[in-house]
């Protein structure tokens, strides 16, 4: 079944290469198009690329990846196909270092002297179009953490993180929706395949790679293109299932994220983007009782650049950080991080 699917994809890709209709690369664009054809060809080519960088900007910014143990704040879709793309696979390397935290009372606390938090993550990403308007995406994360503290030697741990599966349906597509923004809905589930904080075995809990709970999320995405700009607004609601540790029955509050991202086409096959995400979460409960001051509010900013290296390859890199806004934040971890990734696209 799988072989048939990939063979089918290869044939379609070959057909696309011959005809140029579904191509991404400049050298493969249809020549001598009428203006009408250009709207279908060139604009969509540019659009597909711009959406590619969006996956980088939004996926990275929208994630509360600062702590593997924390639920909520998953990316809308970790990998995202443009309108003319049938499948994609990629590899993403992420790294971050802890700078401090904003406590339950909104007070900034820098990381203690002699204490370090270093996080690494490698994600294998895959996306496939299952219908003209529906795509599925899978993320397989592998995480490593290294920590030390005064009087405590460096410790490190690693393991499989929480596997994520998402489906995205384009209710209206960018070309069809004009002058209105295109609307997409996303549903996702994150599986507790990583090691939860309560089950850590390594010193300084460096082997924690997941939340220990199932999470479900629903999102609405609005996109609008004004060449050479592309804007995206996304809202995500995440619900985490309860989990039990000994005689403690805990559940995190429902969390929501709102992301605004802007992508701009640049010279030399480059695209730049900036994104700002706000994450808010309600109070968590323990044995049925709401815990005071357990809500969260966190701001994350990201900037990234994507390079269309060839017709099929995209390379992206970026930086991200939680914005330390003490009065507007609560229970927020503040890190500074970078991302580097490559995605191969089947048109």
């Amino acid at each position, binding site marked *: 079944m799988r072989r048939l699917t990939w063979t089918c994809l290869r044939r379609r890709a070959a057909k696309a290469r011959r005809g140029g209709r579904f191509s991404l690369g400049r050298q493969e664009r249809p020549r001598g198009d009428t203006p009408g054809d250009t709207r279908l060809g060139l604009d969509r080519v540019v659009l597909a690329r711009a959406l590619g960088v969006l996956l980088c900007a939004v996926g990275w910014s929208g994630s509360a990846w600062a702590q593997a143990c924390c639920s909520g704040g998953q990316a809308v879709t970790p990998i995202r196909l443009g309108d003319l793309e049938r499948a994609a696979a990629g590899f993403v390397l992420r790294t971050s270092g802890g700078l401090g935290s904003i406590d339950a009372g909104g007070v900034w*606390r820098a990381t203690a002297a002699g204490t370090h938090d270093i996080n690494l993550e490698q994600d294998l990403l895959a996306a496939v179009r299952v219908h003209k308007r529906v795509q599925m995406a899978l993320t397989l994360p592998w995480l490593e953490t290294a920590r030390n503290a005064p009087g*405590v030697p460096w410790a490190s741990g690693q393991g499989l993180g929480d596997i994520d599966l998402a489906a995205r349906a384009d209710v209206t597509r960018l070309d069809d929706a004009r002058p209105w923004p295109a609307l997409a809905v996303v549903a996702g589930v994150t599986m507790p395949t990583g090691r939860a*904080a*309560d089950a*850590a075995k390594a010193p300084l809990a460096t082997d924690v790679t997941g*939340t220990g709970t199932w999470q479900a999320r629903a999102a609405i995405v609005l996109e609008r293109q004004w060449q050479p700009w592309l804007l995206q607004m996304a809202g995500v609601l995440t619900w*985490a299932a309860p989990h039990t540790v000994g005689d403690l029955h805990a559940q995190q509050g429902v969390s929501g994220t709102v992301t605004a991202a802007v992508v701009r086409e640049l010279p030399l096959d480059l695209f730049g983007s900036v994104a700002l995400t706000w994450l808010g*979460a309600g109070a968590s409960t323990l044995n049925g009782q709401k*815990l005071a001051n357990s809500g969260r509010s966190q701001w994350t900013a990201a900037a990234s650049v994507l390079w269309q290296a060839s017709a099929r390859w995209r390379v992206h890199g970026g930086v991200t950080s939680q914005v330390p806004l003490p009065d507007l934040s609560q229970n927020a971890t503040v890190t500074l991080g970078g991302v580097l990734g490559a995605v191969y696209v089947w048109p």
Partner: protein
Amino acid sequence: MRRLLLFLLALAPLPACQTSPTESGVVAGKTVTTDDGLYQIAWSAVDPLPRSGGKIDLWVTDKSGQTSDGLTVEVVPWMPAMGHGASVYPTVSALGQGHYVAQPLELPMAGSWQLRIKLTKGPQESHAAIDVDVP
């Protein structure tokens, strides 16, 4: 008066043999009352608490202000905002005169933590929570 003395004792820097001073050497301490109002717990710990190997001193008095011995004391670290605890729970030792010590405190992540305390005497369970911050 006895309660006040205990509270002041909790706030005062402890002898070197009882505590491991941080760079700042500040000792944090407050008093919490159990949910059922049966006990008061004066506590003391270095501020900020280290991420590993920390300890907390508890002085427990009953409603009449008498020190409470013979209690089973459990201390469970919990991170309310993240909805998880720690995999290592401290061992609690009774030193007499209502004084209990819980160590090691393993609080590996930066942020606000709760030390959830359960006092058990016979069938009676009393609960309290102490808020601490780990930078």
